[in-house]
């Protein structure tokens, strides 16, 4: 593998990072909306979001990408691969983050909500200033764990035809016939992205556990 091929892998890495970042940012927004609806106390909203979460947690990510990819084309929207894949990952991330944050919101002691109601805080202020900051702290290890899962998951975009790190690896491997070397390097690149995050998540989890004792 010469320098040119390695640089090609790095350009694939760039798209992996970009795709993960887009999916995470939009997924956070979507996930927050899902989590708030899921805990809203309004039965139809709760049912609908519970169904959404069950659908995305019960089917393979690869199928979600396929269905979104071909479904958009069906609707007559001829978007490029970028938009379709980003949308697929955003929907996926919204479901998982929504479920993580639902758990975190419900883990905030009830007294906090009751106290803010007693202080006559409105819903927005109660959530924004009292419940969500505490929920965020509780959910941080799981959120980072999901980010790692998401970065690894973006490799499936290669099957839909999006050129990111895994697909770049495939292309280089077909060119130079050294699959072990190429996939080894690709694996190391993923590892270098995910491992620090995993360690940070584990560190936060220990700190949270220590704070609760």
């Amino acid at each position, binding site marked *: 593998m010469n320098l040119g091929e390695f640089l090609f892998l790095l350009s694939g890495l760039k798209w992996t990072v970009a795709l993960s970042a887009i999916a995470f940012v939009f997924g956070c927004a979507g996930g927050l909306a899902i989590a708030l609806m899921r805990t809203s106390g309004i039965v139809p909203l709760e049912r609908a979001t519970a169904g959404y979460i069950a659908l995305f947690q019960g089917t393979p990510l690869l199928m979600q990408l396929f269905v979104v990819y071909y479904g958009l084309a*069906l609707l007559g929207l001829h978007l490029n691969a970028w938009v379709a894949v980003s949308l697929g990952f955003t929907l996926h991330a919204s479901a998982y983050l929504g479920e993580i944050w639902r758990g975190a919101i419900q883990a905030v002691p009830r007294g906090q909500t009751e106290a803010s109601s007693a202080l006559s805080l409105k819903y927005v202020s109660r959530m924004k200033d009292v419940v969500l900051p505490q929920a965020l702290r509780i959910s941080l290890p799981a959120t980072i764990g999901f980010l790692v899962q998401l970065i690894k998951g973006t490799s499936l975009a290669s099957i839909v035809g999006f050129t990111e790190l895994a697909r770049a690896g495939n292309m280089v491997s077909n060119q130079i016939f050294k699959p072990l070397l190429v*996939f080894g390097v690709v694996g190391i690149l993923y590892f270098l992205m995910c491992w620090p995050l995993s360690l940070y998540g584990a560190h936060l989890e220990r700190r949270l556990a220590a704070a609760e004792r």
Partner: protein
Amino acid sequence: MNYVLDFTPVIDGLPDLLAGCLGTFLLALGGMLLAIIIGIGGVVLRDSRFPACRWAVKAFVELIRNTPFLVQIFFIYFALPLAGLRLDPTPTAIIALGINGGAYAIEIIRGGVQSISKGQIEAGLALGLHRALVFRLIVLKPALRAVFPSLASQFVMLTLTTSVASAISAYELTSVAQRIESETFRSFEVFGTITLMYLVISWMMMAFFSLISARYFSYPVK
């Protein structure tokens, strides 16, 4: 937008798709079995007296958990022949699934083993039980019981991951669907249908695990 949905290819391909579901179950069950073996073996090695063993298990777990399954399956697919093992894609996929699931299983089972208090083990040894029996009855079973829910959801995840095995054209639902799709171009209908099939498969897995839990882990604790 005047596309008419046409499910004829799906209906014509239904026997093939159902056979694909069976292939998916086979991959999932094989992968889980291997994952359990690796998980229990890994936990034993991780607490071994030899630092090299402990270190190797830790490195294995971190390496597998921080790289994508797609890259792992490609690597294994090309590495096995070099190791002198020429296998078909399907057994290769089972090995890859087992290795991947095994790394997660080690972490999960270890959490359960750590929750067993030392006094229990000492009591077992004091009663003259053999070390292997102490491990099986006093450490492993309660540990598995304690972590069974996380293990089950990890295994449902493993079942869904089998779809990635289509990348090396192992025999399972996704690769069958891809074949039908490439013959009929009814992409949305085919993939939409098998998405629902996967949903049913994961529900069946959950039901299977709650059955196991009720059968083997429902004895009273205190």
